[in-house]
């Protein structure tokens, strides 16, 4: 298969910057979706959707205001919310993501491995079903995805101070839920 022609740009330009951000964090994004769905095609579509949005708004991304990972997972979170909204309204998610091709066997196999690798994270998220989405968001980003609180704040679009308070409360509620279920 011939490699597609890429837009030209001077070395070190925005294309190179985007590519660097992509290479550094695409696996964080696939992992994020692999904790939410076991279907490789879904992981692929949602990851693609996230990066289309990322490339579209990359001009506005200012690293001084937060880490690229926080920014990307903020987009991923939004993409997933939109996806869920679509599913709940009976819209065919695939239609919205039209234009993305089917995974080939190799790619699907790769993603199955990724999905499998997120098994424990997915189980943790499942176990937090009693918590609100807001609580699960902070716990996932900090305690599962391993982001620092500042990055997670960017991902959630809240101030670092609000993030700390939310994390504190969410962990407290998680402890309570775990205590009730196992105590």
């Amino acid at each position, binding site marked *: 298969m011939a490699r597609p*022609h*890429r*837009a*030209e*740009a001077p070395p070190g*330009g*925005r*294309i190179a910057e*985007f*590519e660097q951000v*992509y*290479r*550094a964090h695409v*696996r964080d994004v*696939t992992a994020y979706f692999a*904790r*939410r*769905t076991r*279907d490789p095609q879904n992981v*692929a579509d949602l*990851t*693609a959707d996230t*990066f*289309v949005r990322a*490339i*579209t708004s*990359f*001009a*506005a991304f*200012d690293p001084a205001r*937060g880490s690229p990972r926080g*920014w990307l997972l*903020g*987009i991923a979170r*939004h993409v997933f*919310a939109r996806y869920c909204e679509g*599913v*709940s309204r009976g819209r065919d998610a695939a239609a919205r993501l039209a234009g993305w091709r089917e995974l*080939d066997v190799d*790619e699907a196999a*790769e*993603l199955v491995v990724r999905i499998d690798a997120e098994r424990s994270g*997915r189980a943790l*998220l*499942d176990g937090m079903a009693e918590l*609100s*989405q*807001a609580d*699960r*968001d902070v716990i996932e980003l900090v305690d599962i995805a391993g982001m620092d609180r500042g990055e997670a704040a960017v991902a959630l*679009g*809240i*101030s*670092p*101070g*609000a993030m*700390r*308070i939310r994390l*504190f*409360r969410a962990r407290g509620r998680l402890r309570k839920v775990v205590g009730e279920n196992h105590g």
Partner: protein
Amino acid sequence: MRTMGKFEDQLLDRLLTQHGHLLAAEHPAATATAPKRHRARWVAAVGTVAAVAAGVVVAQAPFGETPVASAAVAEALNSAADKIGSADPVVAPGQYLYVESHRWDMGSYVLAKDGMSEAERRMSESGRTVSYLQENVIQTWVPYDRNQEWMQRSYATGKREWLQGTEAELRAAGVDPDAPSPEVRRAKCGDFYPEGGMRPCEREGSWQEPTPEFVAELPTDPEELYEEILDEAEEDGDDPAAAVLEFVDDAIQRGLMPAALRANLYRALAFVPDLKIKDRNANLDGRIGISFGIDRNGKREEVIIDSKTGQYIGGRTTVLAGGELPAGTVISYSALSTSVVGELGALPAR
């Protein structure tokens, strides 16, 4: 950097082929707005979402966001901060800052049933509870040179408000609610309650006991100040947002925070999530102000600020529904006033 698989390679190629032109433009980050806050859009995604898609494990719309202090709260706090100005009472050498705190605090006793031992009574949750609010006045004289001797006089005014049970019940049970009064203490640096082995003026400052050194080291940027308070508040173990409010209340109610810092503390409060304006005409000790509060753990904690002058009036704790006491019962409040007097023990002209 982790290695990419075929899927990631393919995706990168497609992205750059189909959308790479978006990146070729000049770097406009300086003018564009980073997509930092999505809240308005998130909030729109209301509606319970069932996980119906095959393979979708966790699927729920992200509502239930904790709001940060609203624009109205931030505006009111920042406006109060602006009004404080540098309006500290000026204490000349030889003079004293006089700080008077009127407090209503709750006293509570569990009364023994007949035949109950003291130990049983202490453990008992079935005994009858008598509780009341009692008015206390704390007067503090702070010398111009804070290393010199301070004086503090505290007393109960004898005014009580019975919340549960009666005074007769309490006295019949052998409890005298009248504390020995007044109590007078003198100490250099205001160290009225030295901890074991500590000499006066060796105290490390804290939010509850702010020394000039402690005050001098605090950040001047309001958000950093908020983070600093949050560091301490998180240790507190209770809810951190409510704890931040309490710490600020503790710090200011001693009457020793300089105006610039009080202003910054108000600005710092604007970063507290969930802080709400509870009452625009809160009456505390006859003074009217705007109350900023948080409802947590069955209680509402408030600080009340005079919106015309920006001065701190006091703090108040009220019980919410669901407890032993009726909702709306005030279980503690304090009102603060400061002035300058000529000598230790003197009272300001009224």
